[in-house]
């Protein structure tokens, strides 16, 4: 039985005491899952993410991370050192001028000493595919590389869960693909991942997609279920994946295809139809 790592129980939060970002939010995230959270601006995605590692605390209701109440100050240290977070802007979250110093910052603060510290930096760099970049200057890296250094910094703390808050939104397509690949590999190795994103092609590769609207969970399920709901996604001001748009257009024209969410799937469907024609 998988453990529940994060659970929101009727959580409510507002920044100003009047306008609630969410009220009565219920959501549970299991150990080892790869969850994508989608939603337009102002839907409460980032606010939700900051509740996971106790950067924000709910006004009402409770958020449990690793079974501990985030409001319990004695748990804060434990939660933060086990829930790694990567933010949107690559330039805002690197603290040191040399890559290995930056990655060592987190574990060093946890009191990890050499040689373990050096070992952690090394393996974190390997996990994000940046071997050999130890002595590079952080300012001379590309955006995608900076984000990978930020992830390595979080990984070096040996977290149980990794939260990416629109970590790919400032990257070019190649940087985004690299980031996604790293996340997939970490997930396969057992890491629990919560990824907040605008990009449908990223959501298609998660194993669960949660869509937020005005602080409520309005869609929740496997990518194939959620991302195929074109009219609902459009209503929520989200993009409909290309493969899904095409499937729907084809269905309108009488072509018997399933509603696909990835290009590989639709291509397979079409080739099958083509060869049996």
């Amino acid at each position, binding site marked *: 039985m998988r453990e529940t790592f994060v659970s929101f129980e009727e959580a409510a939060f507002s920044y100003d005491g009047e306008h609630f970002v969410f009220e009565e939010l219920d959501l549970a995230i299991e150990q080892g899952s790869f969850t994508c959270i989608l939603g337009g601006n102002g839907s409460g995605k980032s606010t939700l993410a900051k509740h996971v590692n106790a950067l924000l605390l709910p006004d009402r209701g409770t958020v449990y991370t690793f079974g501990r109440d985030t409001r319990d100050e004695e748990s804060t240290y434990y939660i933060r050192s086990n829930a790694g977070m990567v933010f949107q802007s690559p330039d805002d979250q690197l603290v040191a001028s040399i890559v290995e110093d930056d990655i060592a910052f987190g574990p060093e603060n946890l009191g990890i000493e050499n040689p373990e510290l050096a070992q952690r930096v090394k393996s974190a760099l390997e996990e994000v595919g940046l071997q050999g970049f130890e002595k590079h200057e952080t300012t001379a890296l590309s955006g995608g590389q900076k984000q990978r250094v930020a992830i390595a910094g979080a990984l070096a703390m040996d977290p149980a869960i990794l939260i990416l808050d629109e970590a790919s939104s400032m990257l070019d397509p190649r940087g985004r693909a690299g980031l996604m690949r790293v996340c997939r590999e970490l997930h396969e190795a057992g890491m629990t991942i919560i990824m907040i994103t605008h990009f449908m092609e990223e959501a298609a590769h998660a194993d669960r997609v949660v869509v937020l609207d005005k602080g409520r969970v309005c869609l929740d399920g496997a990518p194939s279920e959620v991302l195929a709901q074109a009219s609902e996604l459009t209503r929520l001001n989200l993009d409909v994946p290309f493969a899904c748009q095409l499937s729907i257009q084809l269905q309108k024209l*009488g072509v018997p295809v399933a509603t696909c969410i990835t290009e590989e799937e639709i*291509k397979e469907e079409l080739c099958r139809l083509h060869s049996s024609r």
Partner: protein
Amino acid sequence: MPIAFEQVGYTYIDPKSRKKKTRKIERGEKAAERGKWGTDPDAIWALRDIDFTLEDGEFLGICGHTGSGKSTLIQHMNGLVHPTEGRVLVDGEDLADKNVAARVRTRCGMVFQYPEHQLFAATVREDVSFGPHNMGLSANEIDERVRESLADVGLDYDEIAEKSPFELSGGQQRRVAFAGVLAMKPKVLVLDEPVAGLDPKSRREFLELISDLHKSGLTVVMVSHNMEDLASLCTRVLVLKEGRQFMLGTPAEVFADAAQLKTVGLAAPAPQALACELRESGFELARSLYGVETLAQDIAAELGYLTAAATKNGPAAEEENLR
């Protein structure tokens, strides 16, 4: 106001040290072998042999991998940087001339990446006034322009003018930054990744705004990584590779060859990329540029599901078919 690039080359290496380095590079491959300047003597060039003319009223898309020279290229359009080799001519005048550059700068509005980071004034009105104020316009004219340009970007003057730009949402901030450039009434609008980091709804609204500005007669240059956007909006697309012109043509010409684009780390727009893959699997798809609807129609026809009636009404995008 056509902007002509004539064999433009540019390098960021300081001109004083450049002579020395170029001489050394020319002297032999030894320095290159030691890896001092890489193995390619051309690597010091951010741009090389750029030669095309931006015509009035066109919508030019520029794409290329990170480091391909996109930003350097657009900075040449209003004389922010001057070519190391070749010339940039605006209306036939050389932009290297300070006086020409000063005149062109207000007519070629530049919106950089994340323009909201450049907001600085205490109120929206002051921020948008900054450009027209520097142009030496009268108070009345400035006020009129602020109202107009805020309306152009879909913001309500009365509601927003006296607010601090920093109280606004990210999307609104970007609109304000846009308005600040439009208030100078440029003839050419140069946009560097104008919709990066916006959510899907704001992105659509912004692209509509840009498309409207183009339709109203502005020449638009847009740098973007999003091939779908470039394919649907641009009249011409320039693909850069390592500082050189890799491709230049209509979206149909440039995006026809998905494999070619892949060699520079770019992907064709999704419908186009799928069309190319399906062709390899034996589908006969005739159009040179596909959108979602046209692709669905042609696939349905190819699979024998499209009725004659649908074929008749269907291809509204007949002009897309260049063959």
